[in-house]
């Protein structure tokens, strides 16, 4: 008894894959553990003073702001509340350079702002808080009749102002002296305190504006000397240059991407459906980050206090939307175009954005990316350890006061920086530049510019900056090499999450630390989802091959060498097909062939015979790849040789059959449809050796039929049965008739619902082409197949030859 042949309804044996795929997570798991250990060891050693020391979260800020407002006589009930935070980099840099300046250190670079705005915007109170909860200032606007008030109130005003000054200056009050007493402004009387001691470059002043016995506006102004500002600018020069280079590169990439996208569209090699899905996904993330981030609060807060800024805020975010959307569209299209022709690293990202998102390759890429995150997140901690004096620029502090830090942390995972760098620039460097070392150097330079330009972290030390960018690039590249683009994108998201979580853990506020745990939970959930997909989800066709392949690796592996040899073979094979069909007066001819693998087994040819006759052949070798291609070459030679001998059609076929049978081990065979056109008599002789029946469309009778004459495949039988079985059909052609020869790759082209295109759809497609030329008919049929496949790729070689009677 033979064992039953079992194969799942897929294309790969699924059983052996499960263990194999999960095994592929071992290295990412080790990397993840190493990265986590580094974070756990290094994080407590970082300079906490540089991490702001926030003692409250969004709710805590609102609570503190409300207390301040009420104590200043502002009723907060019924008001809308907005929270924002500001980070003043200049002051931070000053503090870093002048650690001995206690007055400067008493002013924190971070300012948390809480605004209470009445629904009609008539009443506004904005509290400004330092991270440790001290009051930094406030602005109060209420509908009160104007005027400065009587002189008696002016005396009280000084007392009110003094009390407000004490609140703000705190223990440093002794360092200031009153310089302006009750200057009249449109808001009320202004009192100004200046710092007493002469300072190197920092001269803060504290303003208090009193109106009707209330301090309505108080603030600390930061005044730096020109000398200090020049010094600061000089230090930032390197990063300025990198930033300019980054923007030039970025826009050059956008431009190149647009060109590639257009080219790809013309050549019909761009998957528009994917490009749109990619852009929509991108847009969803941008909108989420926008809605739950600090931007809406910032806009409303400034709208309440100053309407001009609100307009700027709105148009700025609008621009971000448009550019994110447009860019993603162009970038993805170009990337896919390149990926289709060169690298397969876009594959699982493409799956993730299709109906097949629940599949193993997607799970593998997500899980590997999340596991890789800690290593990349540990890089800046490591650099901070090596360069303790380098100024570590953390993420934007306003993000910690958004409505949801979680959605904020996963904003923009499809960021063009990652997609552009790995999906496009790396692909370009590795495939278009022949010399390996040049392609590596190009990638390293572009990568450094990209990472430095996007997130220059250690501002005071260019060396630390370069080391940070270099290590980040190396860690990401290794992940990309082992997996693919989706893994790198996921790792970038995981890194953002971990960076934000690490920052939260450095804060004294328990509520913020809790938020850090929630962020880690998000990463863990993503990891879990990835592992579950990898374990349980079905495999997708071609999946393992796509994600396993070290294709696109800078160090060209043996597989790449083979691939390049394949591409030579592919070119040689393409050149073997006629470049243009011959011109036959009164007829038009058109042909097309797409090989499914690098080298294929399909063949078509036009061979001139005596009396202006023309042999038209379409053949298909069983099997695929190199062996099939060798047989295809042999068949082409046999065709050329036998047609030269002026044989009858059945004799041509029988000769080819005999030769193929004698060289073959009979497992390989060739099917062929052969038609001999006599343009003078307007006749066709046709025979079919095991090949798919040709389609004949007659316009005059309105009929479409399959030319199903008997005949067995070439090379199967030594000759006797072949000759006896083969029948030659003779047809008289009329104006408008169409003969379509094709390979089974056309009728067996399968869509995602596992339906085949089939003979009926082919005949229907041919019927639509009555008014077209041969070229037009060919394009129409191919378009019908492409529409039917709806983005699926043909599994087999696809060949089509159209003959049309004019």
């Amino acid at each position, binding site marked *: *008894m*033979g*064992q*039953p*042949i*079992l*194969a*799942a*309804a897929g*294309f*790969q*044996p699924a059983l052996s894959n499960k263990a194999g795929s999960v095994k592929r997570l071992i290295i990412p798991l080790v990397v993840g553990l190493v990265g986590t250990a580094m974070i756990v060891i290094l994080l407590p050693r970082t300079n906490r003073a540089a991490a702001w020391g926030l003692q409250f979260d969004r709710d805590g800020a609102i609570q503190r702001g409300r207390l301040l407002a009420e104590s200043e006589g502002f009723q907060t009930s019924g008001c809308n509340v907005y929270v924002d935070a500001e980070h003043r980099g200049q002051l931070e840099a000053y503090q870093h350079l002048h650690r001995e300046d206690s007055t400067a250190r008493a002013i924190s670079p971070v300012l948390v702002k809480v605004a209470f705005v009445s629904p009609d915007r008539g009443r506004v109170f904005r509290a400004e808080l330092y991270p440790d909860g001290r009051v930094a200032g406030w602005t109060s606007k209420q509908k009160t009749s104007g005027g400065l008030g009587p002189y008696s109130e002016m005396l009280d005003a000084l007392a009110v102002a003094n009390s407000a000054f004490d609140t703000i200056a705190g223990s440093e009050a002794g360092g200031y002296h009153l310089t302006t007493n009750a200057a009249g402004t449109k808001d009320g009387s202004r009192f100004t305190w200046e710092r007493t001691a002469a300072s190197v470059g920092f001269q803060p002043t504290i303003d208090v504006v009193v109106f009707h016995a209330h301090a309505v506006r108080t603030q600390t102004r930061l005044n730096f000397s020109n000398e200090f500002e020049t010094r600061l600018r000089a230090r930032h020069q390197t990063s300025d240059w990198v930033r300019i280079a980054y923007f030039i590169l970025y826009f050059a990439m956008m431009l190149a991407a647009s060109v590639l996208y257009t080219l790809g569209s013309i050549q019909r090699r761009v998957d528009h459906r994917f490009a749109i899905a990619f852009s929509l996904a991108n847009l969803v993330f941008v909108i989420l980050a926008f809605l739950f981030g600090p931007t809406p609060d910032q806009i409303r807060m400034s709208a309440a206090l100053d309407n001009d800024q609100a307009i700027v805020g709105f148009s700025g975010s609008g621009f971000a939307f448009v550019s994110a959307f447009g860019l993603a569209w162009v970038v993805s299209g170009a990337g896919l175009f390149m990926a289709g022709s060169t690298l397969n690293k876009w594959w699982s990202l493409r799956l993730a954005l299709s109906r097949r998102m629940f599949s193993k390759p997607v799970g593998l890429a997500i899980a590997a990316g999340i596991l890789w995150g800690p290593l990349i997140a540990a890089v800046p901690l490591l650099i901070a350890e090596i360069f303790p004096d380098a100024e570590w620029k953390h993420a934007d502090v306003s993000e910690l006061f958004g409505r949801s830090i979680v959605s904020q942390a996963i904003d923009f995972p499809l960021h063009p920086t990652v997609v552009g760098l790995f999906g496009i620039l790396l692909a370009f460097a590795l495939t278009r530049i022949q010399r390996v070392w040049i392609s590596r150097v190009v990638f390293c330079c572009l990568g450094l510019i990209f990472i430095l330009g996007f997130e220059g972290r250690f501002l005071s030390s260019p060396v630390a900056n370069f080391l940070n960018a270099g290590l980040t690039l190396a860690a990401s590249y290794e992940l990309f090499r082992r997996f693919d683009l989706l893994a790198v994108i996921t790792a970038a998201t995981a890194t953002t999450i971990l960076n934000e979580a690490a920052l939260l853990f450095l804060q004294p506020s328990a509520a913020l630390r809790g938020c850090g745990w929630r962020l880690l939970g998000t990463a863990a959930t993503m990891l879990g989802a990835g592992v579950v997909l990898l374990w349980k989800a079905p495999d997708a066709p071609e999946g393992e091959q796509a994600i396993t392949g070290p294709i696109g690796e800078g160090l060209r592996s043996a597989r790449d060498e083979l691939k390049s040899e394949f591409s030579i073979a592919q070119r040689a094979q393409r050149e073997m097909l006629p470049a243009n069909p011959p011109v036959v007066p009164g007829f038009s001819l058109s042909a097309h062939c797409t090989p499914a693998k690098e080298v294929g087994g399909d063949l078509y040819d036009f061979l001139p015979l005596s009396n202006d006759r023309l042999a038209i052949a379409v053949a298909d070798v*069983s*099997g*695929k790849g190199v062996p099939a291609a060798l047989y295809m070459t042999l068949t082409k030679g046999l065709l050329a040789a036998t047609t030269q001998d002026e044989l009858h059609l059945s004799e041509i076929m029988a000769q080819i059959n005999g030769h193929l049978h004698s060289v073959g*081990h*009979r*497992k*390989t*065979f060739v*099917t062929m449809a052969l038609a001999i056109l006599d343009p003078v008599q307007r006749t066709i002789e046709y025979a079919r*050796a*095991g*090949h*798919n*029946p040709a389609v004949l469309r007659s316009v005059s009778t309105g009929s479409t039929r399959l030319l199903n004459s*008997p*005949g*067995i*495949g070439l090379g*199967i*039988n030594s000759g*006797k*049965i072949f000759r*006896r*079985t083969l029948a030659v059909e003779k047809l008289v052609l009329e104006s408008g008739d169409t003969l379509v020869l094709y390979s089974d790759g056309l009728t067996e082209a399968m869509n995602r619902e596992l339906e085949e295109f089939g003979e009926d759809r082919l005949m229907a497609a041919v019927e639509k082409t009555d008014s077209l030329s041969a070229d037009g008919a060919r394009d129409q049929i191919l378009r019908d197949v492409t529409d039917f496949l709806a983005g699926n790729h043909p599994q087999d070689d696809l060949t089509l030859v159209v003959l049309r009677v004019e």
Partner: protein
Amino acid sequence: MQEGKSILALEGYLDAHTAPQFEKAVEEEFEAGRIQIIVDCSKLSYISSAGLGVFMSFVEEIREVGGDIKICGLTPKVFQVFEILGFPALFDIVDDIPAAMKKYAESPVKES
């Protein structure tokens, strides 16, 4: 096995991945001297050219020693593939296993 005849049942997809298993099974039968083979394709849902190649690679050797491969139970879709390639002229293709048995009784080797 029935009256010295081997029945090989195919199931699912017979393509480049699974053809070697089938090939091995036919080879084992042949080497064990069981040369009257019936291939039951009633559960075969797809066959590729590699699968068809297996039928062809053995049939001549088997016929030389007086055996045969008879095919039964083809679904219409798989039959279409056999038919296009001209297999009905090369192999006895019948409806089911009893019909294949009967065919062996009538003509042990396909007449050509």
